[in-house]
């Protein structure tokens, strides 16, 4: 009993076919080969699978395909960079050493991306709150928060 849903994925219209009980995370990784989105805990605790759905950051491991509607817009880590250029958030993560093993990085960047889209000038506290649902076992968070802050200071349009 597969279902067709017309989605907008990283700015492109895509007709996606999947079983309604399949996790959005698996639809992205397996069906659409968008493997930038990672699985961490698989139960909405760690934020590694964070994507942006209709402008809001969500955990793709606890959304099932059937919950989506025609016209829903999904942005994954693959959708934020230019063809040959990193997105400013990615560039600052790189320069600040905000990524080590890399598993949390796509989710972390998508949480920061959703924040900056809504609030281009967040305070340090607001940045911390925005990534509070994204766990990182390597960096101790300081460099991640610094990277996002630098992106804010650099004044680039997200």
């Amino acid at each position, binding site marked *: *009993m597969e*279902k067709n849903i017309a989605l907008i994925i990283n700015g492109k219209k895509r007709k996606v076919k999947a*079983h*309604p*009980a399949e*996790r959005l995370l698996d639809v992205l990784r397996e069906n659409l080969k968008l493997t930038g989105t990672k699985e961490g805990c698989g*139960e*909405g*605790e760690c*934020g590694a699978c*964070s994507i942006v759905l209709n402008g*809001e*950051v*969500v*955990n793709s491991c*606890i*959304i*099932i395909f*059937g*919950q989506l*509607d025609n016209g829903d817009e999904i942005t994954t880590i693959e959708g934020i960079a230019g063809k040959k250029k990193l997105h400013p958030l990615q560039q600052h993560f790189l320069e600040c050493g905000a990524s080590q093993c890399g598993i949390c990085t796509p989710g972390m960047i998508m*949480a920061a991306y*959703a924040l900056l889209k809504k609030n281009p000038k967040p305070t340090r506290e607001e940045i911390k*709150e*925005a990534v*509070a*649902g*994204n*766990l990182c076992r390597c960096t101790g968070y300081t460099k991640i928060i610094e990277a996002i802050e630098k992106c804010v200071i650099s004044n680039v349009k997200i």
Partner: protein
Amino acid sequence: MRYFKCENLTEALGVIADKETRFPLLAGGTDLIVQWGGRMPEGIVDIGGVEELKLIVQRENVVEIGALVTHGTIVASKIVQRDCSALVDACKTVGAIQIQNRGTIGGNIVNASPAGDTPPVLMAFDAKVELTSLAGRRHIPLREFYLSYRKTALKPDEILTRVIIPKPKPGESATFYKIGTRKAQAISKVVMCVRSIIQNEIVEDIAIALGSVAPTVVRAPKTEKFLMGKKLNENIIDEARKSLAEEIKPIDDIRSTADYRKFVAANLLGRYLTDTFLRSPSA
């Protein structure tokens, strides 16, 4: 597997009215999908698209919040910020932003976790829940909704459609407290809301509701009764702390111990009364 994607309330009520298709209701899914853990039910009744349950409406004496309003929407709501700011504080502590963007207040109520963040606030505010079936609607106080551990008064053919919160009376104040291991993504050791009217140091009205200290979210009627009409002073506050520690019956579990929970709940009540006492006009 059968998947019902319901467009409106009547459609959803029709699906669960029929025993053959009485499958679990799915809203945001932040609790349910985790509980299913990949072992999906035979059918799902997805009510996530029922727009009529996504409204926050102001009436003369109450605020009505649709069951499908997300925690994130409540945090941003001017109406709730003004008339029930303790609920905004509670919604801010649910999971993290990713969960607040999907999880709904109705889901938080019917999930019936004794550690739910919003039910203590709603219970302290004497909120009612609206339960709807094809036969009609009924309203019951949230206080009567939880029957025992994870058991509610919701009938199999009913959907919790709204929560109705009385607007605050003049002089009323309320505070939400959550004690957990960390700020985000923590399930509480103790979660609590106290609402009161304290004028000239006299407790004219008080409601104390707690989570994570019993099989369901509970009120503390003995301690409320003890405080009612009392003139606050250090002795009375101390007595109230002792009363609450005796009244609640928490357990030891992976998140905390019974002793710690009693101690913390008592301290929170002490803090609330002291803070409110100090703010009380003639203090």
